[in-house]
């Protein structure tokens, strides 16, 4: 049944559209507005249902190039997941610990993790970049970045 990738994606989108449409029908109505807040969402939900069904039933065959794009080795996917995890921890901690320290740590480790071996250059960049950005944002643009545990 779900033989092609487009059918699988079509089904997922159909479910999302159905949930969206269901939520649109929960939106409150006001008697005197000619077009209420729920009209456009309902229309969009129906449109998405139709389009996802069209994707499901379309007989367009995936091209070789498209197949190639989907073909990502498991190991690379894990690398990507690790990068996302690093970003996640950065976001989690940077207000607490501070922009400069967290950014230094992030740039150094993610560059090293992704295979950058010149550790001297890496250290220099990962220290100078946050300092430079901090100076530009805080002193030149007046946008404050979290100081964290550092005194400045």
């Amino acid at each position: 049944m779900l033989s092609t990738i487009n059918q699988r994606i079509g089904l997922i989108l159909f479910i999302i559209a159905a949930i969206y449409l269901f939520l649109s029908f929960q939106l409150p109505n006001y008697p005197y507005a000619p077009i209420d807040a729920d009209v456009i969402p309902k229309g969009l939900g129906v449109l998405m249902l139709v389009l996802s069904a069209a994707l499901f039933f379309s007989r367009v065959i995936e091209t070789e190039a498209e197949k190639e794009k989907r073909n990502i080795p498991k190991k690379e996917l894990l690398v990507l997941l690790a990068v996302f995890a690093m970003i996640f921890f950065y976001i989690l901690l940077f207000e607490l610990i501070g922009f400069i320290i967290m950014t230094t740590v992030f740039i150094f480790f993610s560059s090293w993790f992704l295979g950058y071996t010149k550790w001297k250059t890496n250290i220099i960049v990962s220290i100078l970049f946050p300092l430079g950005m901090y100076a530009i944002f805080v002193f030149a643009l007046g946008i404050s970045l979290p100081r964290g545990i550092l005194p400045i």
Partner: protein
Amino acid sequence: MNAFDGMITGFQVALSWEGILFVLIGVIVGTLIGMMPGLGPISAIAIMIPITYGMDPAPALVMMAGVYYGAVFGGSTSSILLNAPGISGTVATAFDGYPMAQQGKAGKALAIAAIASFFGGTVSVIMLMLLAPALSSVAISFGPPAYFALMLMGLTAISSLSEGSTIKAMISAVAGVMVVTIGIDPQTGTQRFTFGNVNLFDGFDFLIIALGLFAIAEVCMLVLNRKNRSLSDDQKLGSLKVTRADLKEMSGPMTRQSFVGFILGVLPGAGATIASFISYIFEKRISKNPEEFGKGSIKGLAAPESSNNAATSGAFVPLLSLGIPGSGTTAVMLGAFLVLGVQPGPLLMTDRPEIFWGIIASMYLGNIFLLVLNLPLIPYLAKILSIPRPLLISLVIMFSLIGVYSISFNVFDLYMLLVFGALGFAMRVFSFPAPPFILAFILGGMMEQAFRQSMTISNGNLAIFVNSPLPLSLILIAFLSLVIPGLLKWRGRRRLAKM
């Protein structure tokens, strides 16, 4: 104000020290980011937006425009040197640019690309200067139904012209509008799809979407391709010299394709990428020796390069005079305008002449800067291509995070950046084009407003969209732009089946 007075106002902005400085910064940053394989003009503009907070709108927008056409200019460098286009608008540049580089004529190829880009950009600015004011004065009488129809046409055009499946492009566009509906409805105050989460009341800032769907998603692709070669130190560029014979050879394609590029840039949905391909094919068709194309032909290099730069300035016509972007990139440009409190549209020319004309005038200057910078400095600028990928990836991630944080100081938005980054990556992997999404996201709110205004005018009668000729014809075009490509494919398939 006529065009002449307007240009005087414009040059007063562009030639002030601030104007010159920010054009220069814009084109340099644009060139550098555009050169990086994988990072396109949308990422370049989105990354630079936080820098403009608190700046005067005129110099800030002059800079942002510079980032945009600078990125298109710079994209050719990596196409030629690495066969890895910096942006999608310079894919066609690699067809003949890379073979030239392999023949040891990289310097010459870069110089030809720079001259063709300069020519296309400049011709296009002249046409922009003439067309944008005219369109502004017509558009001032457009009512909400015409605006709604125009935006609808923009969305269907970008969907039908996107690479790959039209259904997928339409899904991408509809999803973009669906994301806009999250938040408090500005007209009735109804909360939509917020689930009571305070962070969602204002909806998503467009910068989260732009940086997530483009910068972060592009970073993901870079992570996968991180072992691809970057520029090696010993690569010789060769002489930058362009002979008189070369100039003569490229003059024909350059002139023709500047016009083609401009027109395709003005039309919704097309833009630099499609313009460059069409120009390449155009020149190959009319050439006496088409077999030279793809083997390092000067014509084959000059055609897409003048065309994509012409399309870039052309795209400013609908943006400045209608306030409606026709492509993903100009959608993000519109976002940059709105961040600075400037609403482009038919009133911009009269209300904020210094911005309207300042941007146009600055483009003349920017193109000259790009030529002067690129011709002698290309060997040095190209060094940026030797930045190691892992370092580049880490820095782009940081730029994106800082950019989003500095709009709201809200950590929730950073998590959303990550979510949209993952979505953008998934869209790339499963061949859903991202530009329709960002265009729909930017247009979605405006479309809903125009739709409801129209309905209020007509007391809820949908006939308002077909009763007057302008909205009717626009809606017809919108409909046909979706149906015709499908019909052509269907006919083609039937013919194949008969054979």
